[in-house]
């Protein structure tokens, strides 16, 4: 055990820090859940890509930098520490990207990954259906094999940023009569194909953050399938594992708000200290965020030694989503009477940041598999408790 960075790692950190200092937009970009904000975030992604910082842990041939996961953690620390823009294409880059690296054919990797790294292609996830939420194996959207194509019919929902995205990936029932997790295929669908209709859904903050996708005889070549026909569940579970696990929510994503929360507390100390529970909560938020970082370095070390991350990624997901709630709730408590204000209000200072954080934190225990489902997974797969 050695908890010190190598000179190479320090040099990498410095390089990232300097580049971000020179390039992070001074003015916060408008939310990527609007058309304008989405485009500006795409341009930022292209800038990151050109500097080689889009997907640092991908192989160079696919638009990455060939870094290991420790470097990725370092990158994330600098990225969030610098207050750089949210990663608009992360569902593609982090979730589908990992799946393609593991399961894609050489052609698929060569075609899709670089375009994803540069955000020339923007991706949306399409798993959920009206009757397949937590019970994802209940998927009923069909993909009927027809020569060298699939014909897709059905409906997906809650697809994040699908109204602006170029592509969607998800599971479709390709084997007629199949049930549950059998007979599903993992398909990539260009969203400009005939027969695709996208209807936005306003999220809690009023922005059209996710969407329903309707498929009406949508024709997709079989070369857009990842893994074998009918074996999509297996491929998707690997993706879900990554999502719950480290990649989607790196520790720095929580350490930065925790740092801001401490500052918010210090700036409002007299008011906050009227209730000693606030200081306790702020300290716990910081400490939990740091514990999550330590846990990440430990996990990455074990992954580098060849270990697989199992059900413990479910514990991670529960931990960060609950931490996110505590951080933003505590901030709202400190802001007190002005906490409800929108960013446009005259008295608003950092209010938009905290209100956005607070609203989005409400979704954390739901998306990427609800925390109830994660607790079931931990109990059954990690502790070995009986299924039914």
């Amino acid at each position, binding site marked *: *055990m*050695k*908890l010190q960075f*190598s000179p190479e790692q320090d040099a990498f950190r410095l390089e990232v820090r300097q580049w971000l200092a020179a390039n992070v937009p001074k003015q916060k970009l408008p939310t990527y859940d609007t058309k304008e904000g989405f485009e500006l975030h795409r341009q930022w992604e292209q800038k990151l890509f050109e500097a080689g910082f889009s997907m640092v842990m991908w192989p160079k041939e696919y638009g990455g930098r060939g870094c290991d996961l420790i470097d990725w953690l370092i990158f994330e620390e600098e990225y969030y520490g610098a207050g750089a823009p949210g990663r608009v294409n992360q569902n593609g880059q982090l979730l589908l990207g990992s799946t393609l690296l593991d399961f894609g054919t050489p052609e698929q990797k060569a075609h899709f990954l670089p375009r994803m790294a540069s955000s020339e292609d923007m991706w949306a996830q399409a798993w959920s259906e009206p009757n397949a939420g937590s019970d994802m194996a209940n998927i009923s959207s069909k993909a009927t094999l027809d020569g060298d194509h699939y014909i897709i019919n059905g409906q997906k929902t809650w697809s994040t940023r699908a109204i602006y995205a170029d592509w969607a990936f998800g599971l479709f029932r390709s084997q007629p009569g199949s049930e549950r997790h059998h007979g599903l295929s993992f398909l990539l669908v260009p969203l400009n194909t005939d027969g695709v209709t996208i209807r936005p859904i306003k999220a809690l903050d009023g922005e059209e953050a996710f969407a329903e996708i309707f498929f009406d005889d949508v024709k997709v070549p079989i070369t857009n399938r990842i893994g074998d026909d009918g074996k999509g569940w297996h491929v998707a579970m690997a993706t879900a594992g990554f999502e719950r696990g480290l990649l989607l929510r790196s520790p720095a994503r929580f350490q930065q708000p925790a740092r801001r929360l401490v500052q918010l507390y210090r700036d409002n100390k007299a008011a906050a200290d009227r209730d000693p529970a606030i200081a306790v909560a702020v*300290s716990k938020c910081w400490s939990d965020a740091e514990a999550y970082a330590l846990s990440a*370095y430990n996990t990455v070390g074990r992954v580098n030694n060849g270990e697989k991350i199992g059900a413990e990624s479910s*514990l991670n997901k529960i931990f960060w989503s609950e931490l996110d709630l505590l951080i933003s709730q505590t901030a709202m408590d400190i802001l007190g009477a002005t906490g409800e204000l929108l960013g446009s209000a005259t008295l608003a200072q950092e209010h938009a940041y905290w209100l956005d954080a607070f609203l989005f934190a409400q979704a954390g225990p739901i998306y990427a598999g609800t925390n109830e489902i994660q607790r079931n997974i931990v109990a059954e797969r990690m502790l070995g408790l009986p299924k039914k």
Partner: protein
Amino acid sequence: MDFTFSEDELLFRETIHRFLATEASPETLRDIWSGDTDASTLLSLIAEQGLSALSVPEEQGGLAMGDVAWSLMTQELGYHAIPDVFANSAYVATGLLTALDDSVSQKAELLERICAGDLGFAIGHSCSPLVADADSADTLLLQHADELHLLGAADVQTVPNPSIDFSRRLAQVSWNANPETCIVSGEAGGKIWNDTFNRGSISVAGQLLGLAQRMLDLSVEYSQQRKQFGKEIGSFQAVKHQLADVAGKIEIAKPVLYRAACSLENHHPLSDMHISQARNFCSDAAALAARAGIQVHGAMGYTWEVDLQMYVKRAWALNNTWGDSIMHRARVQDYVLNSDIDHAPSNTFEAV
């Protein structure tokens, strides 16, 4: 940057685990708890394995094992509820003696004794009015302000103070601090006591984490066997989720404990805070494991009959040993809130 244990360290833990599972079974503990035997048989078995020599320096014939490896060992000691005197002698007192200047005449001899299997050391620190194992110790290391005093059994009077953890032997100690018994004082003494307090604290942290795992294992086992409404109670989601939450507390506490151990071993400037942070996480895990453990055992959980009770009570007792939980929480809070440090995400391993 490598936040992992070596294969040797993991193998060592595995070996210790198997040894203690045989020699410190719940039945053995029960005998100690009921007063049928004292801990000395168990302790001699442990010493015979050479475990008293683990952290003794090589000069005195020991293995010079550091705090990082000890963070695995203390979890095993907790898991098997090994009575205090082993960790306090072989780890905490050994650390204290090792830190003494070579000019202290008793240093080498005392370390050699520990190496040879003498586990009769008691340490009295100002964080508690009680000293564990003071009435049976042959050597007492006692704090008086910044001074460290070395006393023999004949030099002190002890009054036993029974604990809810029946394996504990707490006592009030009366003694006179005089120049002849003082072996270190001043700044050097203050530093030794600070390090000793930290080592005691992290020893307890590891034990609490091991206890949490033991309570979780016992609870999982029970909920796989006990049936109600025609099925195992472990199939009920309300039971599953309580135990999943315990698993969550345990998993997140591990890296915090390991980082603290690494800081202590390498004299990191933030060791104090890191150790208190580890204590907080390990305490939380143990407290929840105890509460959930009792709950899923139903009325059985409220009896003397189940083995669970020994681990639960030990966890409660250790929670305020080597610094109470308020002190450890306050130490972290003070660092986080009242220092003017900018807690940037890049600072996790830095001493800013």
